[in-house]
């Protein structure tokens, strides 16, 4: 009886000691999947031994890991907890043939990131002093990363342990979380950099909306942030997010490659429509692949082949960026400006593309990334390099914007000066003595300098007035320079015959208009009220509210040797000349101001006509000149 009494006394005491059954070491790995593998009597001696915590990858598909364990005598089996390391994302735990716990549901949409977890052992499944068989049925879908541990840089460090619920597992879980949170901090820090730069660039783009390179860089940054956010969610929150993060982050990886290549094209000036479309192919390909996986919820055969095609497509897009920039640098090698902002920006984008290629591969093979611990935090070489290159790209794009804005301001100042010169050339009628006539003019250029012109050339000796009104096709400085040429030619013109003036002007313009032309109407107003008009493709003037019939003639500068013809009129009331900016003013409904409205207001003052036209919708230079006789 004495030993029995001692045993009875010892059992409660034994149950009070901490239980710490180390389950690490060799387990047995099955080739396939069969329900009988859960049974304790199954003979697994032919199975391959594998160590846990595991060092390498476990096979794809559904397999089993088994291990036999001796439950010590006196163990309080009602308090048992089984703790497993982060060996796999989806698995079931069978203990002595009974399912006692699971992580994930063997479906992609319910797959969790692998991490250490404790499972309480229900009472009555194991017995103190008896052997027990732990069988882990796991599923490694082809969808997941090559390690089978999802977005998780924390290696499987165990523990594999059978203990009482009040000891080891909590510490292990806390330790695992701390590592993840530290990794999460670095993800948040790098994301904060990218978000800040994206906002900075967005503000800059709002100021200069034609700068597409800023939009492309913003796109690249957003794709990077998306990647990090997905990693963060997978790491910190124990959501069934592995599939979700794969679904979003793999296209994001292809997206930032697309944006980098677009940026390279924009910066180097190598814009090809087919390539602008082709850069999106990897994203489309991957999204389509994801859709199939998502629909099946199980992955599918041949997924690896698809992955490889997608990888090659993505790499090609990155290589295109590198190729474009290399070609651009080679083409500009003779500039000798290897340290200017444009060159450094191209090099920075190339570096980003270089980093991006291993970054893509790293989704499938972690060894391509270098991860190290510093200051208690986990740092990733890809993240660090990405941040450094992003800083450089953002700075250089903004620097380039600043340089261009300064240049634009300088050009704007020069154009403003050109406008002053042009205004002095075309001459205000108020500054010209026109005895016997009242001449009014309104001139509203569509841009800083215009292509419309008018000249009022009185001849006080005979009391006549020569009025020349015209329009150079196109706008801007090129048109303004032609106006300057016309001004110079007219100042040397001795003829007072409108047709001859036009013919001479035409000869001086042939070969100078670069594919454009100049329309021009020339009229001589005599002191007795006679008006002689010649026209070179210009809109006919109006007199007394009627359109004047003039002989049509070819515009100036098109072909040489053109003969122009004159028609005679009488100046009764007001003569009104205009440019096509009047009749072709267009409102929001795309309705032209037109000839009828022009005729209706042709007796009003020049300023009123010009203002009415502008109010309708100016889209070209507007010039109106009116001539009345003083009676």
């Amino acid at each position, binding site marked *: 009886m004495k030993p029995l009494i001692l045993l009875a006394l010892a059992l409660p005491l034994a149950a009070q000691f901490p239980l710490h059954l180390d389950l690490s070491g060799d387990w047995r790995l099955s080739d396939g999947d069969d329900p009988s593998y859960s049974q304790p009597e199954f003979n697994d001696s032919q199975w391959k031994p594998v160590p846990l915590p595991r060092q390498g990858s476990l096979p794809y598909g559904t397999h089993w890991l088994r291990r036999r364990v001796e439950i010590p005598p006196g163990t309080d089996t009602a308090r048992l907890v089984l703790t497993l390391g982060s060996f796999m994302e989806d698995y079931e735990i069978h203990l002595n043939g009974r399912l006692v716990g699971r992580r994930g549901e063997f479906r992609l949409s319910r797959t969790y990131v692998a991490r250490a977890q404790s499972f309480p052992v229900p009472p009555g499944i194991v017995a103190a002093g008896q052997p027990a068989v732990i069988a882990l049925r796991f599923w490694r879908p082809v969808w997941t990363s090559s390690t089978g541990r999802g977005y998780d840089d924390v290696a499987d460090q165990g523990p594999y342990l059978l203990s009482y619920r009040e000891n080891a597992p909590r510490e292990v879980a806390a330790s695992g979380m701390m590592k993840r949170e530290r990794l999460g901090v670095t993800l948040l820090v790098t994301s904060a950099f990218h978000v800040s730069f994206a906002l900075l660039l967005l503000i800059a783009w709002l100021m200069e909306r034609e700068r597409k390179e800023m939009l492309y860089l913003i796109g690249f940054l957003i794709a990077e942030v998306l990647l990090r956010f997905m990693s963060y969610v997978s790491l910190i929150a124990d959501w069934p997010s592995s599939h979700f993060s794969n679904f979003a982050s793999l296209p994001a990886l292809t997206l930032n490659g697309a944006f980098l290549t677009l940026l390279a094209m924009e910066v180097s000036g190598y814009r090809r429509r087919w390539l602008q479309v082709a850069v999106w192919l990897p994203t489309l390909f991957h999204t389509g692949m994801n859709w199939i996986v998502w629909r099946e919820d199980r992955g599918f055969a041949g997924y690896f082949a698809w992955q490889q095609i997608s990888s090659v497509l993505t790499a090609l897009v990155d290589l295109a960026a590198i190729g474009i920039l290399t070609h651009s640098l080679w083409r500009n090698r003779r500039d000798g400006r290897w340290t200017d902002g444009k060159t450094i920006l191209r090099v920075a984008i190339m570096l980003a593309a270089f980093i991006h290629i291993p970054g893509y591969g790293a989704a499938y093979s972690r060894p391509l990334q270098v991860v190290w611990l510093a200051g208690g935090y986990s740092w990733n070489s890809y993240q660090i390099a990405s941040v450094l290159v992003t800083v450089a790209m953002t700075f250089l794009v903004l620097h380039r914007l600043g340089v261009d804005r300064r240049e634009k301001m300088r050009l704007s100042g020069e154009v403003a000066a050109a406008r002053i010169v042009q205004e002095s050339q075309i001459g205000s009628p108020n500054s010209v003595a026109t005895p016997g006539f009242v001449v009014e003019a309104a001139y509203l250029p569509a841009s800083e300098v215009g*292509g419309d012109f008018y000249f009022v050339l009185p001849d006080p000796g005979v009391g006549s007035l020569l009025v020349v009104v015209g*329009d150079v*096709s*196109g706008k801007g400085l090129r048109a303004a320079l032609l106006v300057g040429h016309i001004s110079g030619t007219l100042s040397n013109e001795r003829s007072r015959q409108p047709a001859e003036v036009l013919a001479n002007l035409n000869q001086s313009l042939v070969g100078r208009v670069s*594919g*454009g*032309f100049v*329309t021009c109407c020339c009229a001589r107003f005599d002191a007795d009220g006679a008006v002689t008009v010649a*026209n*070179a*493709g*210009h*809109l*006919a003037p109006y007199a007394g509210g009627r359109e004047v019939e003039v002989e*049509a*003639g*070819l*515009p100036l500068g*098109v*072909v040489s040797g053109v003969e122009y013809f004159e028609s005679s009129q009488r100046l009764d009331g007001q003569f009104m000349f205009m440019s*096509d900016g009047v*009749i*072709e003013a*267009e409102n929001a409904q*795309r309705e*032209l101001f*037109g*000839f009828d409205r022009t005729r209706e207001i042709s007796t009003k003052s020049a300023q009123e006509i010009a203002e009415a036209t502008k109010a309708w*919708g100016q*889209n*070209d230079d507007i010039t109106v000149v009116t001539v009345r006789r003083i009676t």
Partner: protein
Amino acid sequence: MMVAPTKTKVEQHGDLAVLRFEGDITSTSEEAVLGKYNGLAAGTSKILLDFSKTPYLNSSGIALVIQLLMAASKASRKVVCFGLSAHFVKVFTMLGLAKYTTLHADEAAARAAVA
């Protein structure tokens, strides 16, 4: 104001080519006007310019049409235009282009003019 990009559909029927313009013709329409003209078959001797889907031509766009007419004139090709709005019929008339082209209300009249 947004300018609709010009599209040009080219139809070649033996020695007759029809250039159907769609959208505004402006300074950005060089390829749509001169580019398409330059791409016509060498044996083309008659050209119809269809402006029925061209709501607007600015002076730069008209300059392109004039260049086309000049090039066709040098190559002894006959060019007729149709589908212009009344507004642009008037503008084309004022430009004195009668020596280089004729203007017609519709395609049937234009085809009859080159038959």
